[in-house]
Each structure stands twice: as C-alpha cells, then as structure tokens.
C-alpha cells in the first residue's frame, strides 16, 4: 500500500546533505510527491527527537508513544490518500478515499487501545463499538456510491447470459433445420418420388395390355411422361436441398464428385480430425460448389484447388483458382451463401484481384461437435437416420 518516493537516479549521486532536498524538487518530483517526502523525513526526525527529550527528562512515563501516534496520522493519511487517488475518478475514487479515512480512523482507535493497555493497563477492548460504527458507515457509503456500478455489472451479466442462450438456441435451430432438410430429402425420395415411380410402372403395365387401342395407349404414354417430369423435378429439388452423395457418403466424396463433374484439374486436400455437423457440411458443400462453378464458368480457370482442414475446432475451407480474377464479391452467388455461413457463426471472404485468380475462404466453428451432434440426432425423428461422418 505504501509507495516509496523513488528519487530519480541522478539524485542518489548528490552529496548527502539537507540541501539535496531542494534539488530533488528541481529534479522533477511533483510538488505533491515532494511534500510527502518532506513530511516523512520531518516525522522521522521528530520521532527521534522525542526519544532524545524523553531520555534527557529521565525516562519516566513513555509519553513519546503518544507523540508518535500523532505523527503517524498525517503520514498514514498521506499514504492512504495517495493509494485512494490512484483509483478511477468518480464513485470508486470517492469510495477509496472514504475507506482510506476509515482505515486511518480504525488504526488510531486500535493503536490508542494498544498504548492504553501497555502504558496504562486498560484491559477491556473499548474501540469495538467505534470500529463497528466506522465499518458500517463505510459499507453503507460504498453500497450507495457503487449501486449504479453493481447494476451495470448485473446488466452485463444478464446480457452475457442472453447472448449465450441465443447462441446456443440458434445453433440448435440450425442443426434442427439441417436434420429436417435431410429428412425432407429422404421423404421426397421414399415418399412422393417412389409413389410416382410406382404410378408410372402401373401405367406402363396398363399400356402393355392396350396394344390394340393406340389412342388410349398414347394417352397413357402422355401421363407417363408427365409423371416422369414430376419425378425429375422432385429429384432436382432434393438435390438442391442435400445432394445425395453428401447425404450418403459425406463431404469429401461429394466434393470429389463435384470436381470430377467440373473436370478442371481440382486438387483436393483434406485434413479434418473431427466430425462435421450436417449443417456445416451442407454450408461447406454449397460454398465449394458455387466457387467451383464460378471458376469454371466465369473465370476460365485451368486449375482449381480445394483445401479443407480442421484447425483449432474450426473447419477451414479454401477454394482457389488460376482464372482471370476480378470477381465481384457481392455479385456472385456466394453473397447468398454468406447468410448461411454466418448463421453458423462462420465467415466467408472472397479475394479476387484482376489477373491473379480468385480465392474463396470460409471458416466454420465446429467446437463442441459431439454435444451438438447428440442434439441433432435426437431431432432427426422417424425412421431416418442422420448421415454424419465425413
């Protein structure tokens, strides 16, 4: 608590003579620092002087103790005051000053009691009520002065809790949505699409028996064609939700199939030491698909590369090409995928200097995958299992 006045190094080289106190002021100590310095020197000097007088008087009742107590009050007040002053201006400094005064007061009470006990033989601890009173007053003042601050702290805590809750529920919502999409995709395949296939099969069998009635057969064939285009539309819809290879085999085979579809020499590099949630897999897949499509269709790239790695609980995906660059980050289809990535607390950035190719980078936090996976699986109701795995 006490703060030594540190003299600048140049001062220690000065001759040990009272006059050096004045150059100390000149050497850059503030007036306040110089005053404390002087105060302690004088108090020390006075304390020694008292002993001398007491000895000269004939060593009776040890009264210098009371003088020391008196001298120590301004010194302690100075020290405590400077401690309090270091607090932030405002309520906390006021409270610290208050406590400095209270501590000094308590100190005086206790030391006075010790002296009366040692010198006068007073036994009972009379400062108790005074200490209690000072403590209570200080606490009450602190509470009133810091009330606002406590409220702010409580508000901050409530805000943090709210953010935690929102983050968690959003993550659960995104996972639930991914599981639901997967279920919808399966339902389209096994429900509507399968029924339509069964329908075309029945129509086909009927047509076989109507070889002798070409006008009816033509009608049936037309119905079959319509059913076929409905099946095809459902297939495209399902593929847009979750590409089958992604649902069946996971991210890496799906990206490999993508690259072979685009036929540029795509170098794929994978190092993901953890399992990726369906939501993150979907986002990563569609970002890669969009980036590769742009590379092949618009930038005239000869080579593309996809790097997927898991780093510090994050899935990092970088898609780069050697095309013409100059892609508009807001104009490409990637802008639409940004919302999807951001919903997962991820980031998506596009760098596309003219003539230097394009690099799309995406980072998705995947920490705590295990707990989240449990939640996602519970949400995948019915007979459908959730395809996880890489």
């Amino acid at each position, binding site marked *: 608590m006490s703060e030594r006045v540190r003299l600048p190094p140049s001062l220690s080289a000065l001759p040990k003579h009272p006059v050096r106190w004045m150059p100390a002021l000149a050497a850059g100590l503030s007036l306040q620092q110089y005053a404390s310095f002087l105060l302690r020197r004088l108090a020390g000097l006075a304390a020694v002087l008292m002993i001398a007088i007491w000895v000269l008087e004939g060593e009776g009742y040890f009264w210098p103790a009371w003088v020391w107590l008196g001298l120590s009050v301004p010194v302690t007040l100075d020290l405590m005051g400077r401690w309090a002053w270091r607090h932030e201006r405002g309520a906390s400094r006021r409270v610290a000053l208050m406590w400095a005064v209270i501590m000094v007061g308590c100190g005086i009470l206790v030391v006075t009691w010790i002296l009366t006990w040692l010198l006068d033989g007073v036994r009972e601890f009379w400062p108790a009520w005074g200490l209690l009173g000072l403590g209570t007053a200080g606490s009450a003042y602190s509470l009133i002065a810091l009330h606002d601050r406590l409220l702010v702290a409580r508000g901050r805590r409530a805000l943090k809790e709210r953010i935690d809750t929102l983050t968690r529920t959003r993550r659960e919502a995104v996972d639930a949505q991914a599981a639901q999409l997967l279920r919808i995709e*399966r339902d389209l*395949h*096994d429900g509507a*699409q*399968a*029924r*339509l*296939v*069964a329908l*075309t*099969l*029945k*129509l*086909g*069998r009927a*047509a*076989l028996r109507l070889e002798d009635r070409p006008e009816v057969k033509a009608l049936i064939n037309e119905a*079959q064609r319509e*059913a*076929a285009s409905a*099946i*095809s539309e459902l*297939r495209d819809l*399902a*593929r847009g939700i979750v590409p*089958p*290879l992604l*649902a*069946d*085999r996971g991210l890496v*085979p799906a990206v*490999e*199939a993508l690259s*072979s*579809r*685009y*036929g*540029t020499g795509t170098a794929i590099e994978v190092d993901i030491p953890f399992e990726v949630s369906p939501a993150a897999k979907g986002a990563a897949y569609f970002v890669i698909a969009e980036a590769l499509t742009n590379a*092949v269709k618009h930038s005239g790239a000869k080579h593309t590369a996809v790097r997927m790695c898991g780093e510090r609980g994050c899935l990092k995906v970088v898609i780069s090409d050697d095309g013409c660059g100059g892609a508009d980050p807001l104009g490409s289809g990637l802008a639409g995928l940004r919302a999807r990535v951001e919903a997962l607390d991820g980031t998506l950035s596009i760098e596309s200097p003219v003539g230097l190719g394009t690099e799309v980078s995406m980072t998705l936090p995947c920490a705590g995958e295990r707990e989240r996976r449990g939640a996602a699986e519970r949400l995948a109701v019915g*007979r*459908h*299992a959730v*395809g996880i795995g890489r």
Partner: protein
Amino acid sequence: MRVVIAEDLALLREGLVALLRENDIDVVAQAQDAEGLLRAISGHKPDLAIVDVRLPPTFSDEGLRAAIEARRACPHLGVLVLSQYVETAYASELIGGNSAGIGYLLKERIGDVRAFLQAVESVAAGGTVLDREVVTQMLDSDRGRRDALSALTSREREVLELMAEGRSNAAIAESLVVTQGAVEKHITSIYSKLDLPACEVDHRRVLAVLTYLRLADG
C-alpha cells in the same frame, strides 16, 4: 430367368414383382434390406439381382455396397441397380474392373416397361446397361473429354445414350424414329470418332460407353 429383388418400399416391390411375373420372369425371392438380399442370393443362386441403392437401416448406399459384395462373391451374377438419382461415382464403383452383367438405371425408367424388360434381359445375359443420365453427366463433366467428343453430332450423342441403356439397334431406331441402317451408320461413326478398335461388335458397344467412365475416373 431367375431374379431376386431388394426394395424396401412395398408398393414398388410388389409392382416390380407383378411386372416381371407377367412377363414370365421367375422372381425367386424378395428382400427388404441388404442382409436379406445377400441371403437370398446365396440361397437361390439367381441369374439377376434387382437392387435399390437406398436400403434400411441407414438409407444411404447399402444397396450399392451389397450389390458390389454379391458380385465379388459370384462374378457371374447380373446386378441391376435402381436409384432415384444417378451418380457417376456409383456407376464406376459398381463396374469395378468388370462391366459384364451390370445395370444402373434411374427408377423411373421402369415406367417404360418394354425398355426396362429389355434391360433386365440384357443384364442377365451379361450385358451392360447404364442410364442415359450417367452418360449425360459424364459428357457434361470433363472439358477435355468434351473437346474430344465435340466431334460427335447431337444425333450420335443420342444414339450413344441409348446404347448405354443396353438397347438394340432396332430399339434405338424405333426410339429415334429412323431406319436401322441409319442407326448403324451413326454407331460406326461413333466408333471411329472415339477411336475404338474394330473387334467383336458387342464388345465395342460396351467400350463406347465405358470410354466415358474411364475418362471420368482418370
């Protein structure tokens, strides 16, 4: 012909069984999952297995994996895989090193009953039938291959897609409403443009289709 069917949706399974039986094909066993399929194949020794890609319990690609396993156990078994979608990667896996007796069709092709029955016969007899969608995906995929194949006319491309489905020249001619002679001319042209060696005709037919598959893998 003895056939085993693995399809988990009863509606479709029953429709398939009815269609095959109406056309004098002997359906010896029906399975609802991959395990049942493998049991039925080892128990009945059929000529052909018709398999849905997605089967219980995970509804991902069990059917495909079971089909590949069954082929490994008995290489002469014909396998016709049906799916709601086609993936060239699946086609390549299914064929592995041996394209004989392999079929991979979209489910809705069942609706064209005659073509489907023809595909069934063809696969059981050791032929190769690939959905035209597979061929389209491959044609669209590789730029280098597109360059190599840009010499094909759109009509030749249509003929190639129908060849991939295992159709005979006569069936192709009927489908495209041209004469059989015209189809033969197109096919000769395809062979020469794809630089396929002149050898046994049926073999070359399959090679024409597999050229795409190999290029997709490479």
